[in-house]
């Protein structure tokens, strides 16, 4: 199977290159980026073939492509792949506008290609265990969830992460979609109302986008859930951040932390406490699912529509933070 990578704007490409190469029968055909200055050295570093245009890589004949551009350009690149009949996995958030997200889903449907959204939490072993527990009825009806996806302000990874136009926003756009998706998956219900408050106190001097956010989602089944999407971990925090949930249901309370399987290291060289993750590799499982869905000619476990619904929730967060009152979903595509 021939897979390509579109754009190295997102640092997750670092992982995906290794993930693809670890799958028997998968060939990483090459990495394309219209920014040669960043794409060429990157491809060289990973000993991958570089293509200075996306069209040139498509012309090599691909089965699938991973779209890892700035969020704003996901739609252009996904639609380009769809027109070429190539299956796509797109980084999250799927798009920066609902219209773009809708167009991506429609284009892939029309072309008959897979559109998968890169939501790695769906492939996290602890998160999957809780999904099974919920399906087995161990918790009974889920009444409410208190969830967090906090992180460091990500500018040190890529400058565009804090650019409103390219990223679609700040902490809200970056972090809301993961938990919005996990909650939809766990509850098997859609969000009907969003309330949110955001602020801009952390890193106020260095970035223009929002850095703090607290969100309340209400689902059609009556469950309510909060999400903390804040960039509230300092740069010297032992790791990048984390994602954790508390679920309160008919039969009790459960907690799940997607990122606590760590070693703690107190190192002389850095004079700093570090957490090293030893849990299972969710990115590997996610990329394998993309490949398996192509091979088995079936929809992936997490789809473009899932990406669309998560974007819709993130956009409703901005609308609610603006009006300071709850916003009803679904939103209409303008």
């Amino acid at each position, binding site marked *: 199977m021939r897979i390509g990578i579109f754009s190295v704007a997102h640092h997750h490409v670092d992982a995906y290159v290794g993930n693809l190469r670890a799958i028997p029968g998968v060939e990483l055909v090459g990495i394309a980026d219209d920014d040669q200055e960043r794409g060429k050295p990157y491809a060289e570093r990973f000993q991958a073939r570089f293509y200075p245009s996306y069209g040139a890589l498509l012309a090599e004949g691909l089965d699938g492509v991973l779209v890892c551009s700035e969020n704003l350009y996901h739609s252009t690149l996904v639609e380009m792949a769809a027109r070429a009949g190539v299956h796509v996995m797109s980084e999250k958030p799927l798009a920066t506008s609902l219209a773009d997200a809708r167009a991506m889903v429609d284009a892939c449907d029309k072309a008959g290609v897979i559109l998968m959204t890169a939501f790695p939490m769906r492939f996290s072993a602890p998160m999957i265990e809780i999904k099974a527990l919920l399906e087995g009825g161990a918790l009974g009806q889920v009444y409410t969830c208190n969830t967090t996806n906090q992180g460091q302000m990500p500018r040190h990874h890529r400058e565009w992460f804090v650019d409103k136009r390219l990223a679609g926003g700040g902490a809200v756009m970056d972090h809301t979609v993961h938990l919005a998706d996990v909650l939809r998956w766990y509850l098997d219900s859609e969000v009907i109302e969003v309330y949110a408050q955001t*602020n801009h106190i952390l890193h106020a001097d260095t970035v223009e986008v929002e850095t703090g956010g607290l969100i*309340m989602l209400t689902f059609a089944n009556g469950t309510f859930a909060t999400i*903390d999407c804040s960039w509230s971990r300092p740069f010297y925090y032992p790791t990048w951040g984390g994602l954790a949930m508390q679920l309160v249901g008919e039969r009790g309370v459960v907690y799940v932390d997607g990122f606590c399987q760590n070693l703690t290291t107190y190192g002389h060289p850095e004079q700093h406490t570090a957490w090293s993750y030893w849990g299972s590799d969710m990115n590997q499982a996610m990329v394998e699912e993309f490949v398996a869905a192509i091979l088995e000619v079936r929809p992936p476990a997490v789809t473009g529509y899932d990406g669309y619904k998560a974007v819709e929730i993130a956009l409703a967060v901005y609308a609610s933070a603006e009006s300071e009152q709850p916003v009803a979903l679904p939103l209409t595509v303008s």
Partner: protein
Amino acid sequence: MRVGIVGVGSMGSIHAAGWAETPAKIAGFLHRTEAGARPLADQYGGQVYADLDALLADVDVVDICTPTHLHHEMVLKAAEAGRHVICEKPIARTVEQGQEMIAACKAAGVRLLVAHVVRSFPEYALAKAAVDRGEIGQPAVIRLARESSGPRKAVNNWFLDLVKSGGVILDLMIHDFDYARWVAGEVQTVYAKSIWNTQATAESPADPVRDHGLAILTHRNGALSHVAGSWALPPPEFHTRFEIAGTEGLIQYDSESTKPIHLYFHKEEAEEAPAVPRPSSPLSESPYTTEIKAFYEALVHDAPVPVSAEDGLAALQIALAALESARTGVAVHLEPLPEVPS
């Protein structure tokens, strides 16, 4: 100084233990029934009073540890009798009641001290002091959680009567509403939901003993607070957590990860859990005793109090706004409370 304690439930008995550590004399106890007050009178000395008037006639200070809906009437009586008052949180069931109580105590020239004990817990006091020293810069996002099993009482379980107690939002979350305001200043908007509120229907009222509430607050200075309060854990659990993320750092606390002792005994049969669980970490002095000692110092030596009656009123205003938001589904904007005239 002679102290009379009204109410002999979980707070009445723990306050008695606190007063026993001060030079104050416990004059006695009042309860709905004489038999109910007898065990504490036997343990700490003092008499069992027949009614509130008899107690007030015999004390300098009255410590009101009764159900929330009774605070208003009892505090007014105490003020009328010219007695200083310690009042359990929440100060009252409505803001108007609280304002009237503060005004009455001011007019009578007596102190009204509200028992927001969380301010006396060392982990909470230490974090507040660190924020005040500027150690983490300006607070931006605060998360507070207080989670236990629901209060159980064989008879008269007023906690589960929403009209009397206000449920988990008013009775439990008020601790963290007060703390959020203490750390990040006045609250501007409140949005909240609770299980009881979302699940109860006319045909099938939800069970408030398993309630769980979540609230999002904005502060006037722009900070955000997330407050979680739960009666949904199985007994005897009582977990507290907080974090304060600021421009210059992050403070975190978790009762579960700071437990100095873990006991794993084989049990023949399940042990009885306390009816109203309380947070506890081994300390040389209980935070409840620390609180009572501070009240003693305030009354006898005019020392500053850890929490003013107005603070208690402001916390009540936030909690009532949370109840209103949970009921109506909209965010509630708080107006600054007028100063209570003396």
